């Protein structure tokens, strides 16, 4: 078994490591990073736009370049999340919370660096995992039917309540609101449009870019303009930039977070649907729960960047497993990569491994090379990105607005998306005023449609019998875990209340 793996990886590396393939990989990562930092243009758009470039390459070269673009855009998205609070995709919403906070206290450098390092480590582990247990793991994913997905989503949403900086009730309200926002659009089961107010532009639901750009980007600029009313020329930083690279203490702090994030990402990544997002949120929640000083989270704790970034990347890596071995795409980007494979005349599916071992293992090797390239490319770039923050804010914010507007518009070429971004921007500003954390809303927004869809599908298949959720073992396990999570959350808050009451009566 082990010799097999070594032989296979050797075959893979011999395919992938040719000067020309390394060059394709480099170009892919570079172009991907540059496009990824443009707000609103995420991995899907970048891969779609650059797909034609690869038509004339050979299969291995094309896939290596495309995965390079994919990694690049992902990391580019994290870069804007950290620097200017613009999440490129749902998973980097979590990175925004502590990453942007770090940038504001002059620690954008370490945040960017730890994101790259964590991603690289998670990518390496993910690659090894794919090589070792990819195919059997993919089989487990097939066991997931509608009831299992529903229970998993419930667990993920309850876990998100841990993210709250404020009260738990308000957080739950934000989650429910996110679920409602996710409902906008055509109902998969009945084909009926809901909450669209007759606008055909909303028939496919609100795009993530619209909600995230509004709640995070637009609202943040509004709040900055208010705060800086008196000192017009001040920049985004509250303090001086201190060091580009993580300190020894940062590395020590992040080590555990990266390990745990990787493990969480690898677990959720194999499940189709929402894997990277759930992983990033869960990893953050776990770090916050385990920390001795959870009050630091949200104020620029490096673990709050390291954990979700590692989890996200590990999940993405494992998402490749199901995409390749089952031919089932995880999300839009994976569907695109599948499309690219078919253009190259390769039908993804169980037979890829046996029919084209050079390609399968070459891809796995190139995944790792892509990750390595990303670190090599981006650590020197950190210095350049930091320079961006020194641009006076009165120039920076109109530029962000311009890039945001173009990014939002480019998703569907629809002016309605721009108007909806304004709406969510103002809503996000109100949330800030009322101290409501928007991140759980985003998670619920992403998972909500999947959750309802699977709830109704489960009941449709069971012909209306609700016991499916507890008679199917995997589903039952998730529900038990959810109950435990709830107990963990409620018990300490009760204890705190009682202590407060005791303290109050003592002072009276």
């Amino acid at each position, binding site marked *: 078994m082990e010799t097999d793996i070594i032989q296979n990886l050797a075959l893979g590396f011999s395919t992938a490591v040719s000067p020309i393939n390394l060059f394709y990989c480099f170009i892919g990562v570079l172009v991907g990073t540059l496009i990824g930092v443009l707000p609103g243009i995420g991995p899907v758009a970048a891969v779609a736009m650059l797909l034609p470039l690869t038509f004339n390459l050979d299969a291995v070269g094309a896939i290596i370049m495309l995965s390079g673009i994919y990694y690049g855009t992902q990391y580019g998205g994290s870069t804007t999340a950290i620097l200017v609070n613009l999440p490129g995709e749902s998973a980097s919403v979590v990175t925004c919370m502590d990453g942007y906070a770090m940038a504001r206290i002059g620690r954008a450098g370490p945040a960017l660096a730890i994101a790259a390092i964590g991603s690289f480590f998670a990518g390496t582990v993910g690659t090894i995992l794919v090589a070792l247990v990819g195919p059997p793991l993919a089989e487990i994913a097939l066991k997931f039917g509608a009831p299992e997905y529903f229970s998993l989503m419930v667990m993920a949403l309850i876990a998100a309540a841990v993210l709250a900086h404020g009260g738990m009730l308000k957080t739950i*309200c934000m989650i429910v609101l996110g679920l409602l926002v996710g409902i906008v659009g055509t109902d998969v089961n*009945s084909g009926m449009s809901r909450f669209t107010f007759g606008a055909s532009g909303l028939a496919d639901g609100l795009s993530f870019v619209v909600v995230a750009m509004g709640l995070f980007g637009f609202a943040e600029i509004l709040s900055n303009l208010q705060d800086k009313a008196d000192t017009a020329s001040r920049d985004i930083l509250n303090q001086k930039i201190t060091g580009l690279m993580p300190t020894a203490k940062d590395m020590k702090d992040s080590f555990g977070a990266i390990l745990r994030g990787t493990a969480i990402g690898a677990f959720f990544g194999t499940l189709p649907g929402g894997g990277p997002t759930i992983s990033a949120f869960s990893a953050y929640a776990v770090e916050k729960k385990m920390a001795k000083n959870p009050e630091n989270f949200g104020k620029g704790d490096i673990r709050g960047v390291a954990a979700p970034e590692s989890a996200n990347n590990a999940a993405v890596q494992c998402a490749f497993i199901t995409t390749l071995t089952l031919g089932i795409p995880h999300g839009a980007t994976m569907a695109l990569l599948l499309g690219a494979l078919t253009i190259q005349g390769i039908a993804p599916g169980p037979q890829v491994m046996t029919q084209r071992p050079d390609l399968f293992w070459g891809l796995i090797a190139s995944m790792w090379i892509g990750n390595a390239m990303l670190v090599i490319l981006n650590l020197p770039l950190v210095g350049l990105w930091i320079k961006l923050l020194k641009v006076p804010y009165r120039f920076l*914010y109109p530029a962000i607005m311009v890039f945001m507007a173009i990014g939002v518009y*480019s998703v569907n070429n629809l002016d*309605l998306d721009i*108007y909806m*971004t304004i709406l969510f921007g103002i809503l996000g500003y109100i949330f800030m005023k009322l101290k409501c954390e928007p991140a759980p809303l985003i998670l619920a927004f992403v998972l909500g449609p999947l959750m*309802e869809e699977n709830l109704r599908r489960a009941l449709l298949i069971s012909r209306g019998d609700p016991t499916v959720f507890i008679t199917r073992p995997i589903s039952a396990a998730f529900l038990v875990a959810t109950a435990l999570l709830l107990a963990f959350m409620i018990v300490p808050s009760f204890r705190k209340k009682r202590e407060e009451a005791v303290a109050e009566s003592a002072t009276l």
Partner: protein
Amino acid sequence: MKIKNQEDFWAGMMFAGFGALAIWLSTDYPMGTASRMGPGYFPTWLGAIMLLLGTIVAVMALKTEGPKVTPFAWKPMILLSAGFLAFGWGVDHIGFIPALFLLSVITAAAGQTFKVVEVLIMTVVLIAGAVGIFIYGIELPFPLFWWR
């Protein structure tokens, strides 16, 4: 009546309002039954939960002390929205470049200092950059001006 915790009170009211809105909008969609849910089932229940929780948050805010809501920044809010509106309308009607011009100038006016020359230079640089990156770089299919 004195609202002790303004932040939570208004947050609660907002949630309750959204909950009520969701319930009201969902009356257009068939409810179905718990075992065979219609498109109205899920949003109605979500709305009900939010109406309830929002009300609890608001009521609790009447009793416990908490922070006041800081005033809104109306001028930036209106100008940033206007900039986006101008771009959304403009890109389809007067072309990418004029739309960007409006967006950049209007949003720049949301700040404290507005020096015409400075803003114009910045706008030209932004437009040049955006056209270079998006039109020539990644070939987005936007018309540059109203005639194409």
